[in-house]
């Protein structure tokens, strides 16, 4: 039994730590002013924060909007619009207190009514927001007074503060949330650290300091220009040439060049981003666990880090939790073992091998790299795999969550529960493998209502063991997140989650170019 | 008197892949001041090459092997390019064969005259314009001032040639080279241009070298005539002498092959039986338009007939509708009116009609399919009209071609030979009437004579009737029994050949006769 006070205290302490950047290290005080140019590798087409889907859009939404909480680099929640929160002991009802004096960009105050309306909109299937399935089992949101928001859940959920930091869980004015949301596709009315100046989705998005941001100390820079570079080589060149200050993400192929370029600081952080080979556990031949294990045994995971991630990653052990997750359980790495693989395959009734078609979407291209490498590695054990690449749009429409053998790609999630219930529980939001394991479901459900850290670690450890056993998907490699910046950019921390940027916390130090 | 232009032992080769080709071989001739020398030769004789040698405008593969070309006492071979430019246009002018291509299509007529006046006579633009307008008047063009601003495409061929002549004479050159200046023009237009030249010559006293394949034309214009063949000068004499008493064999044959209207080649009279009748024939060429239809009339209300074994000549200027009649009678153009074969109305042209009425076209180069051998070309009509490919050697023999020609491709044959194959193809059907659509227009005089002889020969053997379409009145007067005269798509005259010059003919027919170059001899 854990008291609400304890949880509240924990959150508050961590929140305070992050408010003072570089606490414990001797870092120069943030400088105010300047223009930051950050490059992204894809257009940020969607401006409505409830509907954003890709990292550049998350980045822009984060500049313009705030949520109740924010995700730190260690995957804990820090206060954002909410300054504190408490829960009932069964973790089924949570109360969030808002900061005082919040205002939207248009000058109207931001109250709990706006928050409640925003969440109601997110949960409405008609809005089609990804937040609906990612912010926890919320049953009802209410606003008893102007500063208080109460979440009633369908069951206990320990990770709610982290879940509410979800990329799409941004607060918008009530009149928009309850009315016509299309206005948000052209303009931005949020409570974020910046206001929208110009929006050209394929070229650049410019934002300028929000003078009425709740934290008077931030943002440090006056203006952020988000520049779109569809070509990764060109994006790297632009940073090397000094046209940009920061690259939100870098391709492994460009990373060595960036690392060796003068005037560029390469950034790298281990992450839980992974590629996997999804197998339909309800269809032949993958309904037989021996076939799945046979495939898992053919993969040389150390080599795969080289092939798929150019060495910038860590080997995976067929669970979606990497060492970057809080509840990661260490286990010996599965070794490539062709005789065993052959034996499993023969036992499953395929002594002469198996013909399979592995579908890989064309974005990101590492999906294909992984597919081709798996094909070659599995050849020896008798898997005759044909790799079929298709445009992402076609893949989404025809293969994703429907196909029986395809390559998946996921960003790191904020919590173990988020990734497990996204992909692997029986009622997963995205039932890719249709792996129905009641024991596993029970464990995940139990962890949700458990507040005790050690107990949760134990439960999640058992769940990971079940996955290594059952192999609903082969997860051979986790990617490191790569980025690069000019050395004068200070206070930027690469977040392993991949979709969190916190650009309001960085500043431009000595040597930054003067830009108007 | 010293000659203005004197060419001695001039020899010139063209480098070709097969080795040097001798284009001019020891040519010597002289043109005295004020004289016009006619230079006659068939295609490939080297007459244009000689003119270009005088103009110092030779192709890159030309090699001068010896001799001299002296103009006004100065040797031209080997002079500097700058001196060449000072001669060209200024002292030696030139009138070209085809006025349609020798005028720059994108410059106004005025500019094309003033540019030479400014360059060669050093006139100011204003003075040059005045002078140009004056000259346009002198070549009998109407409204010269307005013409200055017009573009070449707005003028007829004859008018364009007058502009070229004006531009050439306006510079007052000492010598003018005429390279077949009337060949591309109609009979009547050509005759008027010759008239103009005679007048200008009298006014200016210019010296001329007049090049032509047409002996009749040269006989009208030149003081002396030189005959060129295969690059060699065969004979040179005063015009009258040459035509009356040619020394050289080839000259004699050449003169003999010139059509002389009085010299009838056909003596018989055809039967009264009408093979083919055309009643109120009309062909309207129209092009579809987005809004309504714009109609271009081809021929209008033509009624004529051809009798068994008869040669019916059809004459007229280009565009008068002669060929349209041929196309209508062979089903190539959709016609209104009625056609009768042996008195029976022809509805759809069936096999019998096709077989009875055959056609031979003008251009030997395009009338044989380049991707078929001669044998295939002849075998097709044979099979179609109940013959057998075994008859091919006979057919070839009939047109005086060796049997092994069956294995050749069209491009391996000369123009005259191709036309013989086309004749053989027509006769493969054993037709009763052959329509000859300007079949000798593209041929040299001597080849033309041989083709005519062949046609008459075949007629003697098979009793075939001909509908002989031509613009050459002299030729048709030699062979036709009756004459149909076309003007602006209408039949203006249809008369027996004996009625020509009897006063019963149409005024237009008379004009046509007068314009036809007076025959030689």
């Amino acid at each position: 039994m854990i008291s609400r006070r304890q949880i509240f205290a924990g959150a508050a302490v961590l929140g305070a730590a992050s408010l003072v950047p570089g606490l414990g290290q001797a870092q120069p005080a943030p400088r105010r002013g300047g223009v930051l140019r950050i490059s992204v590798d894809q257009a940020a087409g969607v401006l409505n924060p409830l509907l954003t889907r890709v990292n550049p859009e998350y980045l822009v939404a984060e500049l313009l909007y705030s949520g109740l909480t924010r995700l730190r680099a260690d995957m804990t929640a820090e206060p954002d619009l909410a300054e504190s929160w408490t829960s009932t002991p069964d973790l089924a009802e949570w109360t969030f207190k808002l900061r005082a004096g919040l205002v939207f960009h248009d000058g109207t105050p931001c109250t709990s009514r706006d928050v409640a309306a925003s969440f109601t909109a997110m949960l409405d299937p008609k809005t089609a927001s990804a937040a609906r399935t990612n912010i926890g089992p919320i049953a009802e949101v209410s606003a008893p007074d102007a500063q208080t928001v109460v979440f009633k859940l369908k069951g206990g959920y320990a990770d709610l503060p982290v879940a509410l930091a979800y990329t799409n869980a941004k607060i918008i004015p009530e009149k928009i949330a309850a009315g016509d949301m299309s206005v948000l596709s052209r303009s931005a009315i949020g409570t974020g650290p910046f206001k929208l100046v110009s929006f050209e989705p394929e070229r650049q998005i410019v934002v300028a300091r929000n003078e009425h941001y709740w934290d008077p100390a931030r943002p440090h820079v006056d203006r952020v220009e988000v520049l779109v570079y569809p070509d990764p080589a060109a994006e790297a060149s632009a940073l090397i040439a000094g046209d940009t200050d920061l690259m939100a993400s870098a391709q492994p192929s460009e990373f060595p060049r960036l690392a060796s370029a003068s005037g560029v600081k390469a950034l790298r952080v281990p992450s839980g981003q992974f590629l996997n080979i999804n197998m339909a556990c309800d269809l032949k031949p993958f309904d037989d666990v021996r076939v799945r294990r046979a495939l898992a045994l053919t993969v040389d995971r150390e080599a795969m880090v080289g092939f798929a991630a150019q060495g910038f990653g860590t080997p995976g052990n067929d669970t979606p939790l990497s060492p970057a997750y809080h509840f990661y359980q260490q286990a010996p790495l599965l070794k490539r073992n062709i005789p065993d693989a052959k034996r499993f395959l023969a036992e499953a009734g395929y002594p002469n091998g198996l013909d399979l078609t592995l579908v890989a979407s064309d974005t990101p291209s590492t999906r294909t790299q992984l597919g081709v490498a798996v094909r070659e590695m599995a050849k020896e054990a008798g898997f005759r795999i044909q790799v079929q690449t298709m445009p992402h749009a076609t893949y989404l429409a025809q293969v994703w969550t429907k196909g029986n053998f395809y390559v998946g790609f996921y960003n790191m999630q904020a919590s173990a529960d988020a990734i497990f219930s996204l992909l692997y529980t029986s009622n997963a939001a995205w039932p890719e493998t249709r792996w129905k394991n009641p024991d596993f479901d029970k464990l995940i459900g139990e962890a949700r209502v458990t507040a005790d850290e050690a107990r949760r670690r134990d439960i999640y450890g058992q769940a990971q063991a079940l996955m290594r056993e059952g192999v609903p998907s082969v997860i051979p490699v986790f990617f490191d997140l790569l980025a690069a910046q000019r050395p004068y950019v200070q206070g930027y921390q690469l977040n392993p989650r991949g979709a969190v940027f916190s650009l309001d916390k960085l500043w431009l130090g000595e040597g930054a170019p003067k830009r108007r | 008197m010293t000659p203005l232009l004197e060419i001695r032992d001039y020899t010139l080769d063209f480098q070709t892949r097969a080795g040097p080709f001798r284009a001019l071989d020891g040519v010597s001739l002289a043109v005295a001041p004020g004289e016009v020398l006619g230079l006659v030769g068939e295609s490939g004789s080297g007459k244009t090459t000689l003119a270009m040698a005088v103009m110092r405008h030779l192709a890159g593969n030309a090699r001068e092997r010896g001799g001299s070309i002296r103009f006004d006492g100065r040797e031209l071979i080997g002079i500097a390019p700058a001196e060449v430019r000072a001669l060209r246009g200024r002292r030696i002018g030139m009138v070209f064969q085809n006025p349609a291509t020798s005028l720059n299509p994108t410059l106004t007529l005025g500019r094309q005259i003033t540019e030479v006046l400014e360059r060669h006579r050093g006139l100011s633009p204003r003075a040059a314009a005045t002078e140009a307008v004056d000259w346009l008047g002198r070549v009998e063009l109407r409204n010269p001032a307005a013409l200055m601003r017009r573009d070449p495409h707005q003028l007829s061929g004859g008018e364009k040639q007058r502009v070229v002549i004006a531009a050439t004479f306006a510079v007052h050159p000492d010598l003018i080279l005429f390279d077949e200046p009337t060949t591309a023009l109609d009979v009547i237009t050509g005759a008027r241009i010759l008239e103009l030249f005679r007048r200008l010559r009298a006014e200016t006293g210019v010296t001329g070298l007049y090049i032509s394949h047409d002996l009749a034309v040269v006989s009208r214009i030149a003081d002396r005539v030189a005959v060129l063949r295969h690059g060699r000068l065969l004979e040179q004499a005063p015009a009258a002498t040459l035509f009356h008493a040619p020394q050289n064999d080839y000259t004699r044959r050449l003169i003999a092959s010139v059509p002389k209207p009085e010299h009838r080649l056909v003596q018989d009279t055809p039967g009264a039986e009408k093979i083919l009748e055309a009643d109120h024939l009309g062909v309207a060429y129209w092009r579809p338009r987005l809004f309504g239809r714009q109609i271009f009339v081809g021929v209008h209300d033509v009624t004529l007939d051809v009798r068994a074994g008869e040669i019916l000549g059809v004459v007229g200027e280009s565009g008068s509708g002669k060929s349209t009649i041929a196309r209508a009678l062979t089903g190539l153009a959709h016609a209104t009116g009625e056609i009768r074969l042996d008195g029976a109305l022809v509805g759809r042209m069936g096999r019998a009609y096709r077989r009875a009425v055959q056609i031979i076209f003008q251009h030997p180069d395009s009338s044989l399919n380049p991707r078929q051998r001669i044998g295939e070309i002849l075998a097709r009509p044979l099979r179609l009209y109940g013959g057998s490919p075994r008859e091919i050697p006979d057919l070839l023999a009939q047109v005086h071609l060796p049997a092994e020609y069956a294995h050749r491709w069209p491009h391996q044959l000369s123009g005259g030979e191709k036309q013989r194959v086309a004749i053989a193809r027509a006769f493969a059907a054993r037709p009763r009437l052959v329509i000859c659509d300007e079949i000798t227009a593209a041929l040299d005089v001597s080849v033309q004579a041989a083709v005519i002889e062949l046609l008459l020969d075949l007629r003697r053997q098979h009793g075939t009737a001909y509908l002989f379409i031509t613009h050459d009145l002299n030729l048709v007067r030699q062979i036709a029994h009756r004459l149909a005269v076309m003007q602006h798509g209408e039949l203006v005259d249809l008369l027996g050949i004996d009625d020509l010059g009897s006063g019963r003919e149409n005024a237009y027919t008379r004009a046509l006769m007068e314009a036809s170059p007076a025959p030689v001899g």
Partner: protein
Amino acid sequence: MNDLLRRLLATRQGALGVVLLVLVAFCCIAGPWLAPYDAEQIDFLGRFAAPGTRHLLGADQLGRDVLSRLLTGARTTVPAALGATLLGTLAGAVAGTLSAYLGGHWDEAIMRTIDAVMALPGLLLALLVANTLGAGGLGAVLAVAVAFAPGMARITRSVALAVRRQEYVSAAIARGESGTYIVLREMLPNVVAPVIVETTIRVAFAVMLFATLSFLGLGAQPPAPEWGLMVSEGRRYLHQAPWLVVVPGVAIAITAIGFNLLGDGLRDALNPRDER
């Protein structure tokens, strides 16, 4: 045929084009046997191996031998380009000839529609078709064929109209030949020559259009050793391993130049004016 080859070799472009294409054809036929390695054999330690004795033209990001991939890939790249062009030509030639034969309003309607389709840039049309048919070899072949067909129709029609005006065609009509005979025996052999020239030159475009489609992710799909795809994949490692772009890039250029030269050579060799 020998005669044509002789004339072709006599032209400078033709001779050079034939030499280049014989080389390419040799790769297409014997490529897989000549390849020192399996084109898809991955090698962890050999990744990004520079050209040298072990890998003559280097190795790629998966340690696959570039020379082997090049030799094996010739079989995908060149026949696909040829096939697409021939397909496009065939479709275009049928439409063009039909239009010229039907004439009048039909001709007007067909040609204006073809003109309208040509207002869409070829690459865009190919992109749309490739997206519709799904990425991959066959889709790309059809996409290129569809992109080429309107242009070929236009060319065929103009050639056919020119041939239609020839007197030997008039002679055949006047002789009472059937439409089929005239189109097939009199017209077609004469239409074919200029169309062949145009087709040859278009193969060069097809090779490049394929490469471009692959570059945009819609052509051949990994792990196929298609040349355009190799360039597109290698482009990401340009700074690490430039040979991954250079080698297949040069192969594409050589093939394209070969077909361009052959086309120009054929134009001269098939020109009836020079037939002596």
